[in-house]
């Protein structure tokens, strides 16, 4: 067995070094990285990392092709969108085509788009006549802030909820918390936002719900309600997963041993059981962040926040393809980065994963 293992690992490692040896500097850096990773996780970790990162790049490329093809399949002629439906001479049409690169072969258009994105140039909006990257950059803080604060709050709330539900299984507290999570999860995020606006309008009419922000304090204020709505949508699944993970841990032998030793329950939970219980939570949350990104789009609509979501919807409605392409690609990229990171964290925590990819 050992003989076979060494012979399969060594070639892979050698191949990976050879692949990156086009420059001595890079290969030196890679060797150092490999040594560090080997110390952390062993040869399996190195292979896992290479495979996972390779998967990330391939999926990213294929996703970009899918987005590009889907957008190009549309019936609407981009030039008519640029012209805003006005009649114009064939010269103007031809000029516009050349300016936006629409007369080049499709594959060349695709490569221009991809290389442009790597340089940070997302193309030119049809309707807005501005570089798409400027439009996006202005709105990133809102959307990313929503998703970040929303998921952070969901984590902070879900873990205690799940732990308490697990400790007091089937008690009234457990059933109420589960019911609450169920109802909040069943309500669409935009509905919760609408109800929240109503309640806030009655209770604290001066709270700034809509409008622009000028300082960081106001930024947090504006984002607090929408992120709360997003939190509720994730809370249902997250607290359920923590609860079942915790129940599984409590029934494990090591907890019984600790109890027999006389370790206080609080210490068992916080120091031992919690770490094992939240491992499935990482996997679930990395998937749910995708739903949260879409939820951010909806919530931005309700709260009239100038974020990526409202720009995307406006782009779809006006058939403004560079905007749709650019924002979708960016969101897919962020989502893939987050899920790859979550997978890597999972592999660091649980060594069994490293062999399964």
């Amino acid at each position: 067995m050992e003989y076979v293992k060494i012979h399969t690992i060594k070639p892979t490692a050698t191949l990976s070094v050879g692949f990156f040896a086009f420059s001595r500097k890079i290969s030196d850096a890679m060797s150092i990285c490999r040594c560090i990773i080997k110390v952390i996780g062993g040869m399996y970790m190195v292979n896992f990392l290479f495979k996972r990162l390779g998967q990330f790049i391939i999926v990213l490329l294929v996703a970009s092709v899918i987005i590009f093809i889907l957008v190009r399949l549309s019936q609407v002629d981009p030039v008519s969108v640029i012209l805003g439906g006005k009649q114009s001479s064939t010269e103007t049409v031809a000029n516009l085509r050349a300016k936006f690169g629409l007369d080049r072969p499709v594959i060349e258009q695709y490569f221009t788009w991809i290389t442009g994105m790597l340089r940070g140039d997302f193309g030119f909006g049809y309707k807005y006549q501005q570089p798409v990257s400027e439009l996006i950059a202005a709105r990133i803080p809102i959307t990313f802030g929503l998703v970040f604060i929303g998921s952070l709050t969901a984590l902070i709330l879900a873990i205690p909820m799940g732990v308490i539900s697990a400790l007091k299984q089937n008690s009234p507290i457990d059933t109420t918390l589960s019911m609450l999570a169920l109802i909040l999860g069943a309500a669409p995020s935009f509905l919760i936002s609408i109800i929240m606006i109503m309640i806030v309008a009655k209770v604290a009419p001066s709270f700034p719900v809509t409008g622009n922000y000028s300082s960081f304090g106001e930024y947090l204020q504006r984002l607090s309600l929408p992120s709360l709505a997003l939190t509720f949508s994730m809370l249902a699944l997250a607290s359920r997963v923590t609860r079942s993970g915790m129940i599984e841990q409590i029934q494990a032998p090591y907890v019984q041993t600790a109890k027999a030793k006389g370790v206080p329950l609080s210490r068992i939970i916080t120091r031992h059981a919690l770490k094992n219980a939240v491992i499935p939570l990482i996997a679930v949350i990395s998937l749910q962040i995708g739903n949260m990104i879409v939820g951010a789009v909806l919530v931005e609509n309700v709260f009239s926040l100038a974020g990526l979501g409202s720009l995307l919807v406006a782009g779809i409605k006006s058939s403004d393809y560079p905007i749709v392409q650019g924002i979708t690609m960016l969101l897919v990229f962020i989502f893939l980065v987050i899920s790859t990171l979550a997978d890597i964290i999972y592999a660091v925590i649980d060594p069994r994963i490293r062999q399964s990819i």
Partner: protein
Amino acid sequence: MKKKNKLGKFFTLPVIISLSVLIVIILAVLFAAFLATHDPLALSMSESLQGPSSAHLLGTDKTGRDIFSRLLFGGRTTLLGALGVVIISVIIGIPLGLFSGYFGGKVDMVTMRISDMIVAFPSLLLAFVFVSSFGRGLMNAVVAVGIIYVPMLAKLTRSLVLVEKNKTYVEASRAIGYSHFQIIFFQILPNCISTILVQLTLDIGYAILDLAAMSFLGLGIQPPTPDWGAMLEEGRIYLSTNPLIALAPGITIIITVVAINIFSDGVQSYLDPSHRKLPSVKKIRRLVGVAHE
């Protein structure tokens, strides 16, 4: 199909309540033409923005259309749309899962790669791009959301088939001479169908939410067709004055989805015997007594 086990109780209290709620909603929506008091599309500017009254059970919206009738007819659009989403995902997803689980190898790899690509998009984003290319409207939205649900169903079916594939009855069927097609659809599929059905009921709930979200953004149903999501969007502006325009469809959505979740939870615990308690001594005695006779 799993036979109903006398020792297990299907109609526990949560299942009864959620099932009756669902039946009420489905019947109300089916018989919308008889129950509705007004034509849902009839504009009547003189009666706009009224509160609940004897003429209009839930009030009117900004163009004078009766909210109660719009709720009933909108339920048709929403529920039929959700059903369409699930049907599309079943037609595409279950065969894909069956074939990739049974045959393995290249078919399996290709199917899993395709599902990975679809899953790489944060849920509804792919539907947004789809709708932006092929135009907005109910049909396109239903097809787009259906495609998004395919990977989940295919993975579930595949894992179930992988478990069933190694059982003796499959080997025996091959030995008798059943073709692959017959084995997959007449031997393996009936054993997997109960778990798949539970997932499908959950999927109907999610499909309702997703379709409502797309209509809310204006990417699904086009006005003036009534639909719960679109009604939410129309009523959003009038929250302080006429909250009912938005609250009526909203609360209906919540009630429907919660009922679906509770019902599928109940079905799941019924199908999973580990949750059942041991029957009382009387029952055992009765059953054993029957067997003795």
